[in-house]
């Protein structure tokens, strides 16, 4: 894939669980991300969906190298990030930025907007003196904030405005890729739309590639070109947003899509909800074979044998061995 800007090859992020006082021994592993293969194309918006605890955020943090990778490679324009030194990583971060979920937590409460936006510029020595002020002004305008608020502190802003500041901070270094980890789920619905529009606008204007993480499928459908559905650390379905969400193929995606409420009351009444039995299994001790089989309405004995690989199915890839039968 030549047009891929970011490539994940069999990425695994496991967290050891340790026990014992003096001699700590490992008693288990949380397999938060377990063998993810994904390619992000230039200028593409890739939606990443899945329920809470399925490893979406860990995958984001893995890409950002905020957590150590257990295995696999994260390749950004030919450079393997998992093998980068701290100094090399600092250079890479110019191209790879992140927007966090909670704008109340991701902005330092003791830094003015100016200080927060100037920090990346100063850390990377991009510009100095008056240029910094000019660039910060420009950034604030880009995300729709009045530059006169420059000397204000985060607590003086609303949630939506704070998220705009966080987005401006991520844009400061003119990155090629932005990873947005549930950027709207901490916001009111009315504000969500504004932030989503801002993001898709920026993607188009600046030619950014965006990984958009969410658990809200309608939001993802609105913004993404392609969608990846994650379940228990693995990707189970990947394809164009409209195809995946309008005609889901993997049983898990179907259940997920059936949970989207519709605004039309008639359609809402006739909506067939697929209710999954039980809770998502523990990532400490995932079920053998397809991780979804204990909850899957179509599960058979053969599903318990091995995890099905992602196989092409029309415009998309699906990880289900019974795909043709159901």
């Amino acid at each position: 894939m030549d047009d891929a800007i970011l490539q994940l090859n069999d990425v695994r992020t496991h967290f050891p669980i340790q026990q014992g006082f003096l001699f700590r021994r490992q008693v288990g592993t949380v397999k938060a991300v377990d063998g993810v293969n994904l390619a992000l194309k230039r200028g593409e918006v890739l939606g990443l969906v899945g329920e809470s605890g399925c490893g979406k955020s860990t995958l984001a943090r893995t890409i950002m190298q905020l957590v150590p990778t257990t295995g696999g490679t994260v390749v950004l324009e030919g450079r393997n990030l998992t093998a980068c030194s701290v100094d090399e990583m600092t250079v890479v971060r110019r191209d790879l930025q992140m927007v966090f979920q909670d704008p109340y937590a991701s902005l330092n409460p003791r830094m003015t907007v100016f200080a927060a936006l100037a920090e990346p510029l100063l850390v990377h020595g991009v510009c100095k003196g008056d240029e910094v002020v000019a660039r910060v002004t420009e950034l604030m305008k880009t995300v729709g904030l009045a530059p006169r608020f420059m000397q204000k502190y985060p607590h003086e802003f609303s949630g939506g405005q704070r998220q705009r500041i966080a987005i401006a901070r991520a844009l400061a270094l003119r990155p090629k890729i932005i990873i947005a980890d549930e950027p709207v789920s901490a916001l009111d619905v009315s504000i969500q739309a504004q932030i989503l529009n801002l993001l898709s606008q920026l993607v188009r204007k600046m030619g950014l590639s965006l990984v958009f993480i969410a658990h809200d499928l309608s939001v993802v459908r609105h913004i993404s070109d392609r969608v990846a559905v994650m379940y228990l650390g693995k990707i189970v379905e990947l394809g164009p947003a409209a195809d995946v969400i309008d005609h889901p193929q993997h049983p898990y995606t179907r259940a997920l899509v059936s949970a989207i409420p519709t605004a039309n009351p008639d359609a809402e009444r006739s909506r067939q909800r697929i209710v999954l039995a039980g809770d998502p299994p523990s990532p400490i001790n995932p079920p053998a074979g397809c991780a979804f089989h204990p909850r899957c309405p179509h599960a058979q004995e053969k599903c318990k044998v091995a995890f099905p690989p992602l196989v092409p199915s029309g415009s998309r890839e699906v990880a289900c061995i019974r795909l043709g039968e159901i």
Partner: protein
Amino acid sequence: MPALLSRIIRDPLTQKKLRRFTQIKRGYWSFLILMVFAALACVAELLVHNRALIVSYEGKWHFPTYGAIHTGRDFGLDYDYEVKYRELHDHFRAEGRGNWVLLPPVPYSAIENSYPGETFRPRAPDWRKGHYLGTDQINRDILARLLYGFRNALLFASCFILLTYVIGITLGCLMGYFGGWFDLLVQRIIEIWSNIPFLFVVIIVASVIPAGIGMNLWILLGIVVLFSWTSMTYYMRSVTYREKARDYVHAAQVLGAGTGRIIFRHIMPNILSTIVTFIPFTVSGAISALTSLDFLGFGLPPPTPSWGELLRQGTSNLNAPWIVASAFTALTVVLTLVTFVGEAIREAFDPKKFTTYQ
């Protein structure tokens, strides 16, 4: 560091806390009174000393308080040692030749026998002679000893805070930030270290210091600091752990900020404002520690003025109640004021009143 402090002070959250502090009347007034006391202690030489403020001799003015030492000959007397300004004052007045001496309000020094040639015994307050609180058992002015003792205690307390906080904050922050084996190792060392009995060490060190050097404020400070920095590390360690897990630290990492920048520009400003609440209690702890060491006789060597030494004299001379009364009152008043300030700061900085995070 100054940049860090000025950022913390300019910060609106800090400003809000300071405003709240000034609204808590008891604590605010205690703070002002303490500041007045501290200011008085800083200029103690102008208020209580046996050197004159101004000597006008044959048309020329001299300022012996902070100037050079003048011998008797400089002012027409017949001795080569330092001028006795109280006598000079009386002498000039008797001469009536236009020379004059302006003495401080209390013209006695803290280490001077103010009844030379007479027997050593505590003397009751004598307003006419300027001994407003009387003298101790070797004829030294008690007010002078209280004021200079307070100055020593303040100096001790400020240096104590500076040193213990610098060590404790740095180490605690590093432990919390890096965690892992470094944290474990330093924690165990601290546990072992804090189990060494402090008083024994003071006694041992005091007995092995060569006579030529002798115990002094700095050695004592060193020993006390050596055994007191540990408590701050626990607090700093845990709050750094907490702050480190917050998203704004991750955001800074993502931006490419280095470890030093993250600790000093991101984590520290969020922690340091809470440390202010500890300062008054550390001050009262330091003053009490110095006083009790002096009381036990392991503190500052004589003739250094100190409250503990005055208390000891007072308890062994209960027939001269002005000694113990003044030392006790001074100690109680200062410690109470410090505690009031501490309570007010604690209330003003109470995170429940306004949250930094929502």
